[in-house]
């Protein structure tokens, strides 16, 4: 509200007028006790402060008004614009000049600062845009190249392909299309997050089912990995968004499968935790905690904090990626008021821990008629 209030020019003139008027009135009350030069300094402070917050024109108004007030009310003879002593004329002239210089300088300084800021934002946007373009063009063009290349080979008239080769090329087209689809899905999700178009639809979720369901969908991508799922027996139902949860687990497991060598084990674990809230001794905070870990190489220690940053790709990463997958995960987790942490395991590998403190419902509490 404050910002809007300051933005209106009319309000700025009003602020300028009122601050000069109020300070002048206060000084008027004590006019007999303090020297009029002090009043001059006080008004100068007011004009300087106005110059920091307001546009140039309202500040100039303040400078003129305060000079008039100084002359009219504080420099003898009172209540005329006439000035007796030559040194007072000089004082008033100096006051006015200093106020003006102050106003103009401060304004210029602010304008310059703003220009630098805009330039910096532009530079960082440009850098971000370039990184995005770089990784996206790689991630999108590679599968397209694979599709077109395979089709061209299949259509070659002068070469006879064995059935086996044809099959391989068809498989390549399929794999590349799936990859393309995944990236497009990520881009769409990112734009949903960016535009704030994420309204989680919380409903009772069987987290175990979500995990198995998602892993079944990923069976092709994880066929060279070992997947171990362990879920608390009697894990309660939690109020979460089914679609977002699927996407979160999908991206995390997919990420593990793409950035770890063949044969690595991916463990997915879901459990129920109760934290006692020691402040109140009554409320128990019930949480759904999901960990997804692998025994690969883990994340580079120096950059691990940036893993969830949009478009961040790790230096020396040979496995590519757009840097979208994990930032979407974070966005979707936070949209459901959850938290996500990432750390490297002591014996190598990465551990993602998701935690959702949401409503839960014990399965046994429902009647089984």
């Amino acid at each position, binding site marked *: 509200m404050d910002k809007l209030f300051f933005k209106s020019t009319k309000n700025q003139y009003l602020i300028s007028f009122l601050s000069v008027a109020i300070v002048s009135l206060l000084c008027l009350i004590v006019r007999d006790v303090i020297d009029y030069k002090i009043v001059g300094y006080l008004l100068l402070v007011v004009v300087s402060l106005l110059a920091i917050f307001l546009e140039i024109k309202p500040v100039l108004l303040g400078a003129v008004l305060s000079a008039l007030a100084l002359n009219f009310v504080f420099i003898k003879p009172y209540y005329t614009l006439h000035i007796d002593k030559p040194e007072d004329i000089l004082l008033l002239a100096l006051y006015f000049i200093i106020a003006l210089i102050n106003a103009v300088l401060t304004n210029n300084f602010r304008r310059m600062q703003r220009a630098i800021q805009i330039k910096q934002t532009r530079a960082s946007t440009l850098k971000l845009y370039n990184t995005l373009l770089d990784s996206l063009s790689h991630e999108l063009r590679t599968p397209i190249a694979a599709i077109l290349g395979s089709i061209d080979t299949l259509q070659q008239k002068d070469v006879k392909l064995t059935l086996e080769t044809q099959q391989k090329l068809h498989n390549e087209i399929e794999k590349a299309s799936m990859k393309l689809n995944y990236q497009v899905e990520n881009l769409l999700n990112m734009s949903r997050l960016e535009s704030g178009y994420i309204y989680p*639809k919380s409903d*009772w979720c069987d987290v175990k089912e979500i995990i198995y369901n998602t892993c079944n969908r990923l069976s092709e991508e994880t066929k060279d990995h070992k997947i171990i799922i362990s879920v608390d027996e009697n894990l309660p*139902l939690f109020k979460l968004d089914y679609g977002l949860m699927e996407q979160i687990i999908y991206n995390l497991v997919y990420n593990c499968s793409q950035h770890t060598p063949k044969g690595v084990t991916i463990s997915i674990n879901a459990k129920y935790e109760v934290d006692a809230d020691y402040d109140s001794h009554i409320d128990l905070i019930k949480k759904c905690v999901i960990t997804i870990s692998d025994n690969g190489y883990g994340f580079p220690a120096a950059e691990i904090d940036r893993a969830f940053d949009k478009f961040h790709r790790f230096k020396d990463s040979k496995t590519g990626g757009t840097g979208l997958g994990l930032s979407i995960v974070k966005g979707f987790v936070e949209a459901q008021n959850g938290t996500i942490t990432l750390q490297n395991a002591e014996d190598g590998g990465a551990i993602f821990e998701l935690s959702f403190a949401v409503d839960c*419902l014990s399965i046994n509490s429902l009647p089984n*008629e």
Partner: protein
Amino acid sequence: MNNGFTILVIDDEAQIRKLLEISLEANEYKVLFAINGKDGITTAASHQPDLILLDLGLPDEDGQSILKKLREWFVNPIIILSVKSTEEEIVKALDNGANDYLTKPFRTQELLARIRTALRSKTSVNNEMTLSFGNCTIDFASRIVKANNEIIKLTATEYNLLALLIKNDGRVLTHQYILKEIWGQSYSEQTQYLRVFVAQLRKKIEEDANHPKFIITESGVGYRFNSS
């Protein structure tokens, strides 16, 4: 092999029409096309197709309203093909009378399977007293379900839920619909019941409850029974 069923495709994308023409005709369906909603409704009226594949994002009119208009008189199956994949959109389409939906990009095998299921439910009215799926049989008269000839003990609610799913074999049933049918109108938002009973039912009839073959979850939308 497909008895010359006629399928009407209502889609404005030439590429999708081409693809569907090739794959549907290869599977011996007769294919008709319409490129917008108005055209689609007139073609449906004049040719009485056995099944309609309807895209929701048509240029002239909102797909949901075309679906409603069709459902005023068209009784054969309608399958939605759409790029709009929000759960609300899907649930709305099912509520408006769609039999099934597929999100683009979809796999042709999946589409053909859904078409076969929809056409099967059209031709065979389910009044048989027993049905079998996998190693299981269900006898509607005596309300008995057997797996490998051994009786599976089901509670009344579990049986009702299973029977409802089986009677709508291949069709997506929304959470709200199932809850209303089994538990009653006032339970239509109580999805926790559904989650729990589906989990129990899976333990009893699926070989591996974690990799269900019969009771398939349609994420955020509902459940589908898949007997084949």
